[in-house]
């Protein structure tokens, strides 16, 4: 039984006059091996092609057909003209911006705290960030729905403590939606931000202190600028996830907060208008890719940005 590895068995004729293997044969063997390794990805590629490429491609083409099946840009025209569509876009962007902003406001101190903790305690605290992660989205949304009710936990608690007198409508509106979405998105900001903060060299902070910077000066002039790539990375993830979000606004919005994904569903449920629905979907997809493309540009230029200090 000869030794056979991915490179193939070499025959006598593969050697040139000096006994060394011909370069061509070596390259061919190497290519064959690389190809076989890449072949391992085929099952995954097939599945992705079946579920992502083909359906999304089909949707793309559907968006350019009107009710009669003819090519037309009517669906996209409607989007620019109908006020209801514009409202949906505005709502979606507003909610995404607000959620991202609130996540940064709340998530930065938490990530900073975690980065300052000694190693043996970090795991414990990190559990509180990871626990929401592996709890079902639906469960968490439901929990907020129950807590934000008129006679729910939050209102009862606040009234008992005298923070406010009459129950505030926290569910089935924008407030409830924001609260729920911030809660869901927070781990997506905290984790990459924490990772970025961890990578900041402690010696740099010590050097700043040694050179005369008070702890506050060190924080604002050295730590924060160095943590910004993490903030950007986390914010982008949160923003992009918010754009396409469905469950939480659907449940907590009470029908008043209509995001793109909900509009798509509504169009399909009510009118079965695939053209309109897929046009909206394409817009959502393009917006998502645009934000991500902007992000990769932005992140590469971060060294230039920091130069303005």
């Amino acid at each position: 039984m000869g030794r056979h590895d991915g490179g193939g068995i070499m025959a006598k004729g593969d050697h040139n006059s000096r006994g060394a293997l011909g370069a061509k044969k070596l390259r061919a063997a190497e290519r064959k091996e690389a190809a076989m390794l890449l072949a391992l990805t085929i099952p995954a590629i097939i599945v992705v092609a079946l579920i992502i490429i083909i359906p999304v491609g089909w949707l793309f083409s559907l968006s350019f057909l009107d009710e009669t099946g003819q090519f037309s840009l009517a669906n996209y025209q409607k989007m620019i003209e109908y006020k209801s569509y514009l409202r949906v876009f505005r709502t979606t962007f507003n909610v995404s911006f607000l959620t991202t902003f609130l996540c940064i406001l709340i998530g930065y101190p938490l990530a900073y705290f975690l980065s300052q903790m000694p190693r043996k305690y970090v795991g414990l605290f990190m559990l509180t960030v990871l626990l929401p992660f592996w709890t079902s989205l639906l469960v968490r949304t439901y929990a907020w729905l129950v807590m934000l009710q008129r006679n729910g936990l939050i209102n009862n608690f606040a009234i008992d403590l005298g923070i406010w007198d009459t129950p505030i409508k926290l569910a089935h509106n924008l407030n409830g939606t924001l609260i729920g979405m911030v809660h869901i998105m927070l781990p997506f900001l905290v984790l990459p931000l924490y990772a970025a903060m961890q990578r900041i060299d402690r010696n740099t902070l010590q050097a700043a202190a040694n050179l005369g910077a008070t702890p506050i000066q060190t924080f604002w002039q050295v730590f924060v600028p160095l943590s910004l790539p993490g903030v950007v990375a986390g914010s982008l993830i949160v923003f992009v996830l918010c754009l396409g979000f469905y469950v939480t606004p659907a449940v907590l919005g009470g029908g008043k907060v209509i995001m793109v994904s909900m509009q798509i569903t509504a169009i399909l449920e009510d009118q079965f208008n695939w053209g309109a629905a897929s046009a909206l979907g394409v817009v959502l997809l393009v917006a998502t890719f645009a934000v991500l493309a902007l992000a990769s540009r932005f992140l590469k230029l971060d060294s230039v940005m920091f130069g303005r200090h």
Partner: protein
Amino acid sequence: MSWLTSAASETQITHGDRLWLYCLAGLIMFLLVVPTVIVIPMSFSDSQYLEFPPRDWSLRWYDEYLETPRWIRATITSLKVAFLTMLVATPFGTMAAYGLFVSGSRYGKAIFFLLMTPMIVPVILIAIGTFYVFGKVGIVNSISGLVLAHTVLSVPIVMIIITSALRTYDLNQERVAQSLGSTRIRAFFEITLPQLKFSILTAALLAFLTSFDEVIISIFLSGGGNSTLTKQMFSALRDYIDPTIAAISTLMIVLSTGLMIGLQLIGHKDSRD
């Protein structure tokens, strides 16, 4: 209270100076955890309105869950789909991750990006897209269709976990094995795979949970007798705040947390060997 005056970092800022940060972080962590777990005690509340703290304790919502056929059917469907997703996504993702990592080919980057698209494309689009295509092919409301869709969502996660495990793994061990006479395939199965055991288990678990917790695609692709648990819960939520959901949620939390804790324990035992 000497801890308050001791240094919190090399810059000699004290814990006392940072007390406000500790309180703020504590509050945030509290607010992160509470909504997740508050459902648990509430599920034992006897009242229709799910009080906290429950005035009267009872298991009536659990009975409700166990006695309603559609909930049980949905649960079984979800478990089936999740299990099958795990069985498909884990090998597919692991193979892809390994192949890409080791080949170092210039097409690798393009393929990696392609396989990551399920994480970038908004899920609603995947949902309606597959709904449309499956509709044409006739496999809407089928378990296999759902498994296929969930697999696609899980594959990127599996790949990320396995790729990061491979990064800390010394691939030279495979080369040594080959130099000692083993084939490449054998080296993988006998040397590499056993060392990746824990990561593969983690990836499998996450694939399972991803499928089990998934909502949007399930809403579109599962229906009728094959509805998933999440789809049923969502419908119930939209119509009224069904307290049975509290019981179901508790069970789901117990399932996920139990699996993750089990995973951590196994990992702990592994590393101690």
